[in-house]
């Protein structure tokens, strides 16, 4: 063991796993043995590094060489060049942009330079299936000290002082939630700690990566929470669609039990705490806190009105503390480094960092953690590397189907709870979907509504019927049949749904429509009045036209048209029959003279 001089870290998060990282690990183990290096180099499976767009990624220490897009066929070369001869394989090194210099070290990349990793501190650093490695980074120290040296109130005071706010989206102060649950009286003394790992926003995968890369940080924080509020049983409600996260959580819980860090008499202090997993069956509404707890109780996952709040009457009618995965992932860092250090990061009203899942039209698709108050411009242009293919950034959607969009004109908005709320968007759980000039905002609003209609539980009519009617009105507009009155009706209907829906899912469902209407009203007007889709997305409003001056009559477009809509003689300008055209764009893609345009 002492002879190990090199660690080969291979990402085994969901992203890299689906692009073959298990095969890479096999190849490394086979190759190291074949070249007699298996005593000197060790292969370590880690969680997500964040740069999912570049996967599968491999990081080799002590050099810190960061290899991207690795295939199993590259492995023999990496072993014989890098491990045996100490020569870094230049062609596989990560490079930023086509002409940029190759970057050897991870911390030098623009992607990482602007990040500050607290919740993701161990992701891509340790093996998530080894409790020893977690302890090696200082794990379970916070729990040990809390149990042996601090009172529950002291723990709560530290969380209060840190200013930590819920990372699930709403931003409720975590310390206050802990205090309320601590103060609540249970008829039989039973209280519960729950973790919301039912991450359902389209394009969001922050919680998944924490659970896959550092499950013990959540387990340790939940145990500390149990001590702070006086609970002895916890539940983690995790999506069944996250098989790797479920597996690693179970492995981690088993290891913690084996070490006596879960179970009876932890650290010989007489404190008992245990954890169980509950798998969600794929309903978006179960991420809403009252529906989540109803589901844990074994009933149909439907929300109910608050109050009573979970802090007083939650799971099985007992006081219950429910926090999100990322919130828990911050807890031990705060206790180990002190609340003041945490409060010094970020802004006054939003302390610490926030993890965002970057997706959509962005070069560096992946996971980033930034201090609160970092501007959207830094996230999109520096960390994210801008929109691919030189397209212009148009808007970013935060908060998924409950959130709103931030237009390019507000790109210098700081990312914190209050600034985002002030411009009609929200922090949300951390999904950040980037849109470029080719995205139609009416179509985007329709996409999120479609998701809500699918996921509405149907208990209350504003959400069940209202969102469907809203969708019908948007469809009317995208098909070119909308009127200006329809826009007024949409706005009225949105207000009604916001005010009368039962739970957060319904109350926030109109947000994407309202915020796109607010920032991109001219686009709606163009659809209605000019019967035109400025981004060229809505098919019914598109017209493909051949410029007779540029057309050489090569017949290529006519040959590729699946509908037979293009006519014309060889070497004479061609014409598209708008009645036959299905607007697939095949002609435009195939024209070598740029003679075809869409309007």
């Amino acid at each position, binding site marked *: *063991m*002492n*002879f*190990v*001089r*090199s*660690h080969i*870290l291979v990402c085994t998060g969901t992203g890299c796993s689906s692009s073959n990282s298990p095969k890479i690990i096999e190849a490394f183990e086979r190759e190291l043995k074949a070249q007699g290096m298996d005593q*000197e180099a060790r292969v370590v499976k880690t969680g997500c590094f964040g740069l999912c767009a570049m996967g599968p990624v491999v990081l080799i*220490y*002590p*050099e*810190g060489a960061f290899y991207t897009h690795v295939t199993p066929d590259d492995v023999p070369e990496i072993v014989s060049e890098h491990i*045996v*001869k*100490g*020569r870094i394989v230049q062609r596989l090194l990560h490079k930023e942009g086509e002409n940029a210099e190759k970057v050897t*070290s991870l911390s030098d990349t623009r992607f990482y330079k602007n990040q500050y990793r607290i919740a993701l501190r161990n992701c891509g*650093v*340790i093996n998530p299936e080894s409790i*020893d*490695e977690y*302890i*090696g*980074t*200082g*794990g*379970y*120290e916070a729990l*040990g*000290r809390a149990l*042996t040296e601090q009172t529950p109130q002291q723990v709560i005071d530290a969380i209060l002082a840190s200013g930590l706010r819920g990372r699930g989206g709403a931003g409720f102060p975590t310390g206050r939630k802990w205090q309320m649950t601590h103060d609540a009286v249970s008829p039989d003394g039973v209280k519960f700690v729950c973790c919301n790992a039912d991450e359902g926003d389209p394009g969001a995968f922050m919680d998944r990566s924490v659970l896959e890369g550092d499950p013990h940080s959540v387990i340790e924080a939940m145990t500390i929470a149990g001590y702070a509020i006086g609970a002895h049983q916890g539940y983690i409600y995790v999506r069944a669609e996250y098989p790797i996260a479920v597996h690693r959580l179970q492995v981690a819980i088993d290891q913690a039990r084996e*070490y*006596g*860090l879960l179970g009876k008499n*932890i*650290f*010989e202090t007489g404190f008992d705490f245990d954890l169980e997993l509950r798998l969600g069956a794929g309903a978006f509404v179960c991420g809403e806190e009252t529906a989540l707890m109803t589901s844990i109780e074994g009933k149909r996952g439907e929300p109910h009105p608050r109050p009573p709040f979970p802090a007083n009457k939650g799971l099985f009618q007992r006081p219950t503390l429910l926090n999100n995965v990322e919130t828990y992932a911050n807890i031990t860092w705060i206790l180990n480094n002190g609340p003041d250090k945490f409060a010094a990061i970020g802004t006054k009203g939003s302390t610490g960092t926030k993890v965002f899942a970057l997706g959509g039209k962005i070069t560096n698709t992946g996971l980033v953690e930034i201090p609160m108050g970092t501007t959207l411009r830094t996230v999109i242009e520096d960390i994210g590397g801008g929109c691919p293919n030189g397209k212009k950034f148009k808007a970013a959607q935060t908060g998924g189907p409950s959130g709103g969009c931030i237009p390019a004109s507000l790109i210098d908005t700081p990312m914190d709870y209050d600034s985002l709320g002030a411009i009609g968007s929200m922090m949300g759980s951390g999904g950040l979907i980037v849109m470029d000039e080719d995205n139609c905002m009416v179509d985007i609003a329709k996409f999120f509504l479609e998701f809500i209609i699918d996921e509405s539980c149907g208990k209350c009519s504003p959400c069940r019927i209202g969102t469907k009617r809203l969708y019908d009105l948007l469809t009317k507009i995208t098909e070119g049949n909308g009127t200006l009155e329809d826009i007024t009706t949409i706005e009225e209907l949105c207000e009604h749904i916001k005010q009368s829906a039962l739970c957060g899912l319904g109350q926030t469902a109109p947000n994407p429509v309202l915020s796109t209407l607010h920032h991109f009203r001219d686009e709606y007007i163009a659809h209605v009045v000019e019967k035109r889709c400025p981004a060229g997305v809505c098919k019914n409003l598109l017209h493909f036209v051949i410029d007779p001056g540029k057309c050489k009559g090569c017949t290529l477009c006519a040959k590729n048209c699946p509908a037979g809509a293009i006519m014309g003689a060889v070497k004479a300008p061609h014409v598209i029959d708008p009645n036959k055209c299905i607007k697939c764009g095949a002609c435009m893609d195939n024209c070598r003279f740029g003679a075809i345009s869409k309007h």
Partner: protein
Amino acid sequence: MKSLEELRAIREKMQKQIDIRENSADDIRVVVGMATCGIAAGARPVLTAFLEEVAKRELKNVTVTQTGCIGVCRLEPIAEVYVPGEEKVTYVKLTPEKVPRIVAEHLVNHNPVTEYTIGAAE
């Protein structure tokens, strides 16, 4: 887990193993030439001896790594020691027996072992 001491014992043991994953700029680097010429001249036992000695003394901030041929094959096995802020020192014609002295005098006490260096051999 019975006590914090027990937890800290595990941590210390593990820290040594995962320390390698923090590549800090103030690490001392020992680079052993491991091209064909180096290996033929016996660089592998030298490399292992460095690893063993560093582990035995529980030295932090020392990385032992390898490199290709630097061109003076007749003087292999060669190792170069980079101490931040000091001049690079090149040791030649090494044997596993010479390694403990280099580790003790150079890596720990910052006094290069002049008689093993390339300057002394030429």
